[in-house]
């Protein structure tokens, strides 16, 4: 029975990843259109007609989805990617070329294993904690997975067998290593303040009182982690590894079809992961401000989950809006921001909260 529960948990978490990633894809397409004053995808499926009476409501729904661009971004793109030719450049090992996209996606998906998605509840005498792996070092695990996410990018750039790809890969790895330091120190600050490494405990400690939420207690850590998160996902103003105006598409220049789509999936899963982390660490997870759910029943867990996901979607949208609003950094500006601003700032922040903790704050 335990095994079945575990399988169901894994299934649910996988669906959350894929759902959030597709939602992000859609927001990216239509949201960027809104920001750039275009209309965006609105044609595919927008003119479906039928004469059969029973099917009319279905086609009515399909027409709305088509007009919103959902059919275009979710269905047509997938069909196009699957049927596209899988191109491998000459003189490159086929195995390495196929390995790279999996190495890019795998750590992100595995990192979801330690994330609690809803409060604990009891169903048919089973107390279920909606978290695939309840490790006591959950934050360390996420940090470890984030640190091996570089390899997909590096192998992709190397198997591209051209200068654009290699430059993109070198830029990406330098950027990710530089920003990982600040991320690690920000995580240490969070661990010091909450006094635990388990994400579930962190969320429970924040409670419904907004004054106890992470963003109120440690606003600077939130800003540092958010900026670092934007840099780690290699998007937004930090998209130098794939800057399309300089490097064609950077490290995945030579990828097409499903492999290219896997890189995209990994990127959006990473955006969603950072949104989830920010929500869990700083915005109280599933807690509603000043309204206590008594907890324990499945429908309250469901409400908690929906509240959690609403906050996550907000941060996904925020990241995409920033990505489409700000212009790209120059490379020296990127390195200066990472090494000369964020790193000393996070160290000072760590020292400040360590002193506060020593003096008995944050019991």
């Amino acid at each position, binding site marked *: 029975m335990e095994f079945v529960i575990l399988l169901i948990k894994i299934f649910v978490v996988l669906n959350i990843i894929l759902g959030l990633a597709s939602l992000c894809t859609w927001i990216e397409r239509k949201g960027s259109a809104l920001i750039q004053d275009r209309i965006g995808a609105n044609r595919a499926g927008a003119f479906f007609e039928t004469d059969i009476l029973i099917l009319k409501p279905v086609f009515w729904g399909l027409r709305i989805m088509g007009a919103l661009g959902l059919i275009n971004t979710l269905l047509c793109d997938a069909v196009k990617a699957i049927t596209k030719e899988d191109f491998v450049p000459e003189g490159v090992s086929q195995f390495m070329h196929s390995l790279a996209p999996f190495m890019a996606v795998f750590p992100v998906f595995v990192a979801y294993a330690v994330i609690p998605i809803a409060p604990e509840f009891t169903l048919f005498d089973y107390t279920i904690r909606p978290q695939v792996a309840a490790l*006591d*070092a959950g934050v360390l695990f996420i940090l*470890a997975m984030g640190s091996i996410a570089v390899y997909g990018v590096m192998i992709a750039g190397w198997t591209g067998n051209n200068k654009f790809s290699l430059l993109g890969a070198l830029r990406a790895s330098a950027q990710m*290593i530089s920003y990982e330091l600040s991320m690690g120190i920000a995580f240490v600050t969070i661990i010091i303040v909450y006094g635990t490494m388990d994400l579930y405990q962190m969320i429970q400690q924040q409670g419904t009182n907004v004054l106890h939420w992470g963003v109120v207690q440690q606003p600077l850590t939130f800003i540092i982690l958010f900026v670092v998160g934007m840099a780690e996902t290699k998007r937004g103003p930090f998209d130098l590894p794939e800057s399309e105006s300089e490097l064609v598409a950077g490290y995945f220049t030579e990828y097409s079809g499903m492999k290219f789509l896997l890189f995209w999936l990994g990127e959006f899963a990473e955006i969603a992961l950072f949104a989830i982390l920010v929500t869990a660490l700083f915005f109280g997870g599933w807690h509603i401000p000043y309204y206590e759910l008594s907890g324990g029943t499945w429908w309250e867990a469901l409400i908690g989950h929906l509240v959690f996901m609403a906050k996550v979607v907000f941060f996904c949208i925020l990241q995409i809006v920033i990505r489409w609003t700000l212009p790209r950094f120059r490379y020296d500006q990127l390195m200066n921001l990472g090494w000369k601003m964020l790193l000393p700032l996070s160290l000072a922040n760590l020292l400040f909260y360590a002193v506060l903790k020593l003096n008995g704050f944050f019991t």
Partner: protein
Amino acid sequence: MDTFAFLVLATVITLSGIGVIAMRNPIHSALCLILNLACVAGIFALLGADFLAAAQIIVYAGAIMVLVLFVLMLLNLKVEKKNLLGYIYLAFGGLVSVVFILMFSYLVRVEPLNQLADNVRGSVAAMGKILYTDAIFPFEAASVLILAAITGAVMLGKRSYKKRTTHIKGQAIDI
């Protein structure tokens, strides 16, 4: 279950270890070593050293090997060629490995090594307690060592720039 996990991990570790020294392309060696180190993290987890398993991934797989791969890609090396000298080294190396294996196979017959490996759990809290009390001096010394290493690496990696002057439209500009 544990035995099975150990056997799988040990097999992968051995094979990828052979891969590190047998692959002619240095990048393939580096990828083999990454696999190897990830499996060592698995062995640490089997031995109950949770913190070390995470640290192994973060430090070795996540930082050191990325640096190595970075340097390999930066230098763009050619594949190593075979030569006669290599076989002499191989014979010598084979001799050394046989001696090592004989030594260790004599060593593991010691009585206390037959007990099961389930005595201690190196949780993060336990490790931290020792690091900040008994091992506080080596801990601080390690931080000094890291600082010295960073400074040294920066000094070694820095190119010495000569001040050059160029003339654009009659103006002297330093570059």
